[in-house]
């Protein structure tokens, strides 16, 4: 068996079968996947949530995770943010020829562990191999389906004046952990990506309150962009307090050094919830008991004023606009 992925592994022929059986099936096996039919067939009853996302993170291994864990968590979290219970995922790999088989195995092992942790199954998949240079090591696309429980109605347009805004923990961990590994920028930090499946946390939150109006995971674009999206979708203003937003020292230090703002740095294991004021404390308390919600806090509230805008009370007692992320945040010049 070759220790690298070569073009023939994507040919559909013998090597492709060997790759699927020896690598993918061995790592991910479950009855639906093992059938190896053209599609996974399963029974379903109720309201379906369906989502897809692609993952192109560089580097593919980073402190606290890898592209596989990221792909599984990302799709699970997108489902969970609609209040859905994630059930089945698809995985499609686009592999650049030359990827060490060992790397692929590591990623599959991580996918297996993450999907087991989250209680979802990978039921269908695909593999393509492209020439060197046509992809960067490995790209993954995932899609997922989940079941939305009866009575749950969570949407970005449901925020109402008076609602409390809850954040599930520190911001910027993922973005800075990945950035710290980038070529030409590597700096040493003990920081790890927060990459995690949040469906367990969400299920507990929904159990604690039926008045969770909005949930969203602040991934690319960071907390600032997510809050702006919610303000626009719900046509409300959001007021947050800088002092209440938890940021790790490592993240603050790196951001100061690079000229970045943690509000705009990506997270992969955090959520923002907009909750009716009377239930906010109960939801918060429940969140803090979950391993992925330990650092939860109320960071602000929804207002009637300035619809579509996010305003932040700064540490020194003034206030300012918090806008969406524009372009890529690039380190400053001086």
């Amino acid at each position, binding site marked *: 068996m070759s220790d690298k992925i070569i073009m023939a592994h994507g040919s559909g022929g013998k090597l492709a079968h060997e790759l699927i059986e020896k690598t993918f099936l061995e790592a991910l096996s479950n009855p639906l996947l093992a059938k190896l039919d053209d599609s996974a067939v399963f029974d379903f009853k109720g309201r379906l949530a369906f989502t897809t996302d692609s993952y192109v993170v560089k580097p593919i291994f980073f402190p606290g995770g890898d592209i596989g864990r990221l792909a599984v968590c990302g799709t699970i979290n997108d489902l969970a943010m609609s209040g859905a219970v994630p059930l089945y995922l698809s995985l499609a790999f686009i592999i650049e020829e030359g990827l060490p088989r060992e790397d692929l195995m590591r990623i599959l092992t991580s996918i297996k562990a993450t999907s087991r942790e989250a209680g979802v199954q990978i039921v269908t998949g695909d593999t393509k191999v492209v020439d060197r240079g046509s992809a960067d090591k490995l790209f993954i696309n995932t899609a997922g389906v989940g079941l939305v429980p009866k009575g749950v109605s969570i949407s970005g347009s449901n925020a109402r004046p008076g609602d409390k805004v809850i954040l599930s923990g520190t911001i910027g961990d993922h973005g800075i952990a990945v950035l710290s590994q980038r070529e030409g920028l590597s700096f040493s930090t003990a920081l790890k990506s927060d990459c995690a499946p949040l469906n367990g946390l969400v299920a507990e939150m929904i159990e604690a309150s039926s008045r969770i109006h909005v949930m969203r995971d602040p991934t690319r674009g960071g907390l600032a962009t997510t809050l702006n999206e919610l303000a626009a979708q719900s046509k409300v203003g959001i007021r947050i307090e800088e002092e209440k937003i938890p940021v790790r020292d490592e993240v603050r230090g790196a951001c100061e050094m690079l000229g970045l703002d943690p509000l705009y740095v990506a997270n992969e294991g955090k959520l923002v919830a907009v909750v009716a004021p009377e239930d906010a404390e109960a939801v918060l308390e429940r969140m803090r008991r979950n391993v992925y919600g330990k650092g939860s806090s109320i960071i602000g509230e929804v207002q009637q004023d300035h619809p579509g805008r996010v305003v932040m009370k700064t540490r020194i*007692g*003034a*206030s300012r606009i918090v806008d969406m992320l524009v372009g890529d945040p690039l380190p400053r010049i*001086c």
Partner: protein
Amino acid sequence: MRFIDEFRSSELAQGLVRGISRHSTRRARLMEFCGGHTVTIMKHGIRQLLPPTIEMLSGPGCPVCVTDNADLDKAIALAGIPGVILTTFGDMLKVPGSRTSLQEARADGADVRIVYSTLDALQIARENPARSVVFLGIGFETTAPTVAASVVQADQERICNYRVLSLHKLCPPVIKALLDSGEVRLDGLVCPGHVSAVIGSRSWEFISRDYGIPCVVSGFEPLDVLQCVYMLVSQVERSESRVEIAYRRGVRPEGNQRALELMNQVFETGPARWRGMGQVPASGLRLNKAYQRYDAELAFDFDPGPTLEPEGCICGEILRAIKTPRDCQLFGKVCTPASPVGPCMVSSEGSCAAYYLYGAAE
């Protein structure tokens, strides 16, 4: 977090604000020269806290913003020469020149690479001996020593394919030009912190002496700026004009001798074009005779084409502090950080970007 939280303390900030309000009786127009200070002021909402007697003006201290279109065109033309790898700090990528930007040039096939340090650019030169690596030297006295260091290093290692397009600019001459123009009346100057760390606070003495304007060097945390404003107000109220430092942890009167020596070793002063201000004598740095072979402008034959200015953009007047971003008809409508017309909207330290991103709550 140590060295950050102390300088953002709400209580201390409120104390300084009370002190400023108590002392300030005369109207005072203070200019923060540096774009970094503009960002601090806007990001933390400092203007809202100051009494109505104090007006803060944003100055021309954003290296990206003051780069003239003719110079940007040179960089873009250099990037288009076959075999050239143009290395630059990230901020420059999106700045529109007369016709295009480095970002667009890259999309068209030019090899433009973002580096975080001049030594990364040097590394690219080592790894690509058959190519010419040009570093786009933008920045004030803060950045120039690091570029000088890369040239000295290249010289020591005999790296022959490394060159610099030196568009470096000097701060004291441009402030002098601004004051001599008579367009702006100032009662106090918030002097740039990092520039002063290199050139020393003494470099501002001519302003307090010859123009009678109080000068205080400031750091970049909110308390630094408030402390600086407090010190400026104290001078204004007593009709004094001296140079003081509100950033002692970073700045000494004599500056950083080693950095200054490196700059002097590699560069010589010459005229430079500033956006909005035209040519200012002795305000630029070019490679001196001993290091001329590293000068990208001399090494290549290229034609940047005629210079065009964006229509309706008042970046020049904003940089001269005679207008503010809100005076611009394009501001927030045609010109936003997502589709910038002028450089002050592109750079993270540009006045227009700072007003746009943080300012609307005022």
